[in-house]
């Protein structure tokens, strides 16, 4: 019941913060958010799961009780962690306190609401990664969107209303598509619950039957495509990515941090769980288009980042690019590919969180994010800037930082992968060109904003960033480096959890 306790505590914290006065809502939220963080560390320390949650592995902290009986099915409250979900839970619980601290400076109105929403979102995020019954999972999945809608809509930039509604409608539309796909799948199976493990194992046992005259193969394929399309929006993959830059640009810094850091991972996490673990055959059959989409996401996203003048937009598009690697790794169906993709989720969560936070620190001081409005910031706010530089290099995949580990595993895993009619080396090599483009746009942006003679067009006095703004950055950087040097902290459990996925794939 530890997971339930964590989720419940976070919900209650959210309520408490909502009712707290604005003056100390931020501090209270930070203090309360440390509890889930410590809790996640406790989960990590006591983690005793093995194998993959969906394929019958040993679950850690499992709870399974019946909830609702409907239509001959039983909906359960079913949570548990395996090597894939635990790192993401830890990531979430780690990022939230930092995001809260990063909100202390920029959020100056309706603070209790702001922090309450953040905690509400955290509770749901933990739920998303822990839930193993479809409906329980889906409740959390959808509930994450609400706080983000408000975070963008209320505390966002000038076009926040447009961005918020776009984010909201777009991602919900995707959820519906995915929902229908999953329902069609479940109803073609002789299962009695919506438990993800049961569904997975039933499919693996070849029990996918025809459904109202539609042959099983078609059902499998259609479900796969529907779910893939649904999750691709969340990831996001080209061409369903356009909500992301708008959402990121308008969102306040802490919301961006969580959006890029955790919310995007929901998409890839779900892809891994649903598409690639449940329907490996269909995934393998569609490997060529999926890999092609991944490559397009990487290159096209990076090209878009190259064209931007807004620092946040640059990082936002580069998220599109980075998530392309994750897809590439997933479709590879190798331990390094799938495991690397999972690791990359965590790594990218930390790194993009750092980047958004650092851009936020700059924005707090300069009140602009336009590359053209400033230069030479390194002279005035060295600590923040050099951490930003370090983050940028992490983004570029500098070795001994977490990003390199993730990307390298993905590359190793996908290069030699037998899927996609042996075309994976080509796809991998093409996708790898992303590491050049990412270096290009980040270096250009840094050169223009951080270095050179000091200039700021917005006429704000610039001083060193306060410690409460730089400390979260430093914490993230430390985490990135630690994971880069010792990826096995997570990768070991991830690997164990992805082996069954890989074995389910066509190899």
């Amino acid at each position, binding site marked *: 019941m530890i997971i339930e306790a964590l989720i419940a505590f976070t919900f209650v914290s959210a309520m408490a913060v909502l009712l707290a006065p604005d003056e100390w809502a931020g501090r209270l939220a930070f203090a309360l958010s440390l509890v889930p963080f410590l809790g996640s560390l406790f989960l990590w320390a006591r983690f005793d799961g093995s194998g993959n949650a969906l394929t019958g592995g040993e679950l850690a902290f499992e709870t399974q009780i019946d*909830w*609702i*009986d*409907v*239509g*001959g099915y039983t909906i359960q409250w079913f949570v548990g962690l395996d090597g894939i979900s635990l790192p993401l839970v830890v990531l979430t619980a780690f990022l939230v306190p930092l995001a809260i601290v990063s909100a202390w400076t920029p959020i100056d109105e309706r603070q209790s609401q702001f922090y309450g929403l953040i905690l509400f979102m955290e509770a749901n995020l933990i739920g998303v990664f822990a839930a193993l019954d479809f*409906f329980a999972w*889906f*409740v*959390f999945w*959808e*509930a994450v*969107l*609400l706080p983000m*809608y*408000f975070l963008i*809509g*209320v505390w966002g930039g000038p076009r*926040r*209303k447009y961005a*918020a*509604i776009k984010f*909201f*409608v777009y991602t*919900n*539309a995707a959820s*519906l*598509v995915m*929902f*229908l796909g999953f*329902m*069609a799948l479940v*109803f073609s199976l002789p299962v009695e619950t919506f438990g993800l493990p049961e569904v997975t194992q039933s499919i693996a046992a070849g029990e996918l039957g025809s*459904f*109202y005259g539609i042959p099983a193969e078609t059902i499998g394929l259609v479900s796969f495509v529907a779910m893939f399309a649904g999750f691709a929006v969340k990831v996001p993959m080209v061409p369903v990515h356009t909500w992301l830059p708008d959402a990121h640009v308008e969102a306040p810094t802490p919301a961006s941090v969580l959006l890029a850091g955790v919310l995007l991972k929901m998409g890839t996490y779900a892809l891994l769980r649903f598409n690639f673990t449940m329907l490996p055959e269909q995934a393998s059959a569609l490997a060529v288009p999926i890999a092609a989409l991944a490559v397009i996401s990487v290159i096209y996203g990076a090209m878009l980042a190259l064209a931007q003048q807004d620092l946040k937009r640059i990082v936002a598009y580069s998220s599109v690019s980075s998530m392309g690697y994750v897809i590439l790794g997933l479709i590879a169906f190798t331990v390094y590919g799938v495991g690397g993709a999972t690791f990359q989720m965590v790594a990218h969560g930390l790194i993009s969180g750092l980047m958004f936070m650092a851009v936020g620190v700059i924005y707090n001081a300069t009140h602009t994010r336009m590359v053209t409005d400033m230069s030479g910031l390194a002279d005035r706010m060295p600590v923040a800037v050099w951490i930003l530089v370090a983050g940028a290099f992490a983004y570029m995949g500098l070795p001994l930082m977490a990003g390199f580990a993730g990307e390298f595993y993905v590359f190793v895993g996908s290069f030699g992968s037998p899927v996609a009619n042996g075309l994976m080396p080509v796809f991998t090599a093409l996708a790898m060109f992303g590491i050049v483009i990412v270096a290009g746009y980040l270096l250009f942006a840094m050169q223009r904003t951080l270095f050179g003679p000091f200039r700021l067009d917005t006429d704000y006095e610039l001083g060193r960033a306060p410690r409460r703004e730089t400390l979260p950055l430093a914490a993230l950087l430390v985490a990135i480096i630690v994971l880069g040097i010792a990826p096995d902290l997570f990768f070991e459990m991830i690997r164990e959890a992805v082996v069954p996925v890989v074995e389910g794939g066509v190899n």
Partner: protein
Amino acid sequence: MSIIQSSTLEPLAALPAQTGGAPLPEWTALGPILALVATGLLLLGWDTVFPNRRTNTELSVIAAVGALVTLALSGWYLAAGTGRPATGGAITLFAEAITIDGLALFFTAIVAVVTALVAVASRDYLDDHETPGEFYSLVVLAAAGMALLASASSLATIFVALEMVSLPSYALVAYLKEDRGSVEAGMKYFLVGAVSSAIFVFGISLVYAATGSLVLSDVAAAFGDLDDLAGVAGVGVVMMIGGFAFKTASVPVHFWAPEVYEGAPAPVSAFLSSASKAAGFAVAFRVFTEAFPIADAVAVGIDWPLVFAVLAVLTMTLGNFAAAVQTEVKRMLAYSSIGHAGYALIGLAALSAGGSHNGAVMGASMAHLFVYGFMNTGAFLFIAMVESWGVGRTFEDYAGLGSVAPMASVAMTVFMFSLAGLPPFGGFFSKYFLFAGAVFNGFWWLAAIGALNSVLSLYYYSRVVKALWIEEPTDALSAVDSRPTALYGAVIVAAVATVVVLPGFGPVIETAEAAATALFG
């Protein structure tokens, strides 16, 4: 065969046991309906005895208590399994003119809930109004008609009950006699209602002509061999569908709805769009499953699930698309109510002869109407509150309400998101179970269209939320100077219920599904 004839003795075990262990007498199955009727009469009596009271608190309390008693009774019966297969099946009374089963009790409960909420909320809405007495009695009597409608199992009873609902409703809509909107709405409601009831009763007459009976089970029996009367029966069935469409505000008889919901006093809008609609669905569910068995009907070319499928698609699409472009919140809710009728119609559309999951689909639809009873009523009651403040009606006028009335705005946000089908609110499960049920029964395209509409609905529901929380407050908000306690209470209760029903969805859907499955039994 006369209509009023004591029924053959049914297994009395179907009724809850008395304290001594013996079952209650059979007529007690009518308890919920009788409670409403009695309350209505009591209200009239009270108003007669104290005609010039300046306060309507007592009336409100009486109406609410009466509704709660009804709710308690129907809840008790539901929990005890009255009229359910497990305890011996449906209880039929008066030569099968009335059937008390899970469906009837379930919808009675919905009606009772809405009535209670509306009664409480009206206490503040009708403050300083001259003649509150008739308002409450009309509401409660209409509710009694709705409860009867849900229990009616003869076409005659159905028509009578339908009129019992309609006639008070016309009066309620036009209740604000000095208000041009209210009067215009009343006029339109009445005229369209009159035409539809004429069409409906003509449809009944054609069905009677074809089958020679008004009792649903006998109609069903005759449906097996209609021979060349299939055409007559078919036209009759479609015309009856027209009548149901009126009650449920579905295409093609939805035209009254936007104006009525907009023009009527907001509590009445809440009442009509939640309870009246639910009652319409209740009777439609019963009539079509019991009187026109799918297999027989389809065999003679009366493919009514197809008709409902077409209507469902048209209704949800029309409702949602039109709602998306409204400028006034109340009218938007009116269209959204049409859209939800479209979703609920899936419960009749996604059925197939011998479909193993018919019960699941219809049950999901019932559960949706149940949740809808809370969230939609709550939303209209919020409008009532805003109307009582005198803030304008458009989205712009709602800007920043969250900053001056946070609790109510939170509640409204809950309603909006729940209507949009988002967690963690009840509307989420009900809508998704509905879609799942449709997919389950092979009507994936219906679910897909529902999903598309759902996306659109997200847009306009979130516009309200946006206005409440995201837009900057305007000067108009200084009008918000009161805290109408009863209205607040009703809204908050509805909101809490909307939230609580998500984790507690099990009993709701299980009851609804059992009730629906029994119909297909």
